[in-house]
């Protein structure tokens, strides 16, 4: 992402009353902290030691952060997950298709909103695998 969009992004966030914004891609990480004591901080960096991975939608559907029977999110940001764990769901009518974590690791950012309609291959969750 070009650096000259940061000012514009910051202005939008301030308008929307959002203090913190973090975007993690496969190879880079951007963090804007508008509410910080230093009067606003922007960090751009390499994502991490291990490259972050993106969990993509295995099918189209309505992306759910939590099971329809529960108020608790399946895998909130920052949570540790096992390989094969269900971290989200895609709803197609009454059918629920799992979004699973490919490896053991940490959920860093949930990219798609709860109940967002997504297509096959949409980026749903940024995920930091543990070093193996």
């Amino acid at each position, binding site marked *: 992402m070009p650096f000259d969009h940061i000012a514009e992004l910051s202005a939008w966030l301030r308008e929307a009353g959002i203090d913190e914004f973090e975007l993690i891609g496969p190879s880079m990480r951007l963090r804007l902290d508008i509410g910080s004591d230093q009067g606003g901080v922007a960090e751009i960096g390499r994502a991490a030691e291990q490259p972050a991975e993106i969990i993509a939608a295995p099918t189209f559907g309505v992306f759910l952060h939590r099971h329809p029977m529960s108020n608790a999110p399946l895998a909130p940001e920052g949570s540790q997950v096992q390989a094969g764990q269900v971290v989200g769901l895609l709803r197609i009518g009454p059918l629920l*298709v799992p979004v699973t974590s490919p490896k053991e690791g940490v959920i860093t950012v949930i990219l798609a909103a709860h109940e967002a309609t997504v297509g096959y291959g949409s980026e749903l969750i940024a995920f930091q695998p543990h070093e193996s």
Partner: protein
Amino acid sequence: MIEIISIGALATVQDLGRTGALKWGVGTAGAMDAMALASGNILLGNDVNAAGIEIQVFPFQARLVEDCTFAITGADCEARLDSLPLPPWWVCQAEAGQTLELGLPRHGLWPACRAYMCLDGGIEVPAVLGSRSTQLRGAFGGLDGRTLQNGDRLGTGATNGVAGVAGFGLVPPALEMPLVVDGLPAVRVLPAAEYACYTPEAQAAFWGQAWRITPQSNRYGYRLEGPRLDPIAPMELRSHGIVPGVIQVPPDGQPIVQMRDAQPSGGYPKIGTVIEADLWRLGQAPIGSRIRFVETNWDEAVAAFEQNESWLAEARRLVALHRMRVGSR
């Protein structure tokens, strides 16, 4: 083959019920939540009427003696396969030696009290009068006509051959087709033969007040607590045929709803009948919870039945499509 290693009271083998035998005085039995049992079978690709286990006292533990595919539906009981948490209403593959555990029902967004475990091929027990449901009163059907005990081993019928694709689920129909009045779960009721024999106050209370499910409630019937329902004049009736869903009013004025293990005849006056299409909703209402009755008519009752059938048909269609898509990868 599964082996029960920890089970509370009153777990039974049930299919959708022994219909057509009331003429011989044999009650219907069958799953209290027929939608949950049918959904478990749909998740596995079984016939909807395949037999499963109805569990109503927790915790429950079963050891999977062979590799198998199973589905869990009904109340959300924090199912675990060994240490792996399973989502509710889910179909799952397991290896021989693994243990399935169900904990206490969580009353999150749908208060429910009965869980169902279905297996690929259905639970194989002899069909009696066309059904594998346990008939407790007659001590036949199910496993030796009795409730399940620790150490019981249950085999399955021939695999249906499609359950190899697992790891997905369904949204419970209670969330897809909610029926709520003043914040309480409701069931639709047809006025029954003696409805007109009750005072206007009793009729108004019947529809307008909440009814608590007392601890004297089970698969035979639910004894409810609420305002006293008085007839205009005392009634004495001869015993006559009754079906699950009939709401009788004994002389104490507190109604009893006949459930799946109801006897086929009774002599109390009948104020209403819970429609067949809503019996599954009542079958999941926990003891101590409160429900409401909503007046309905024949046409609406038939439409409600058709709505259940089309929900199940749509679930079956989407499950089959998903299997085909995943299986072809």
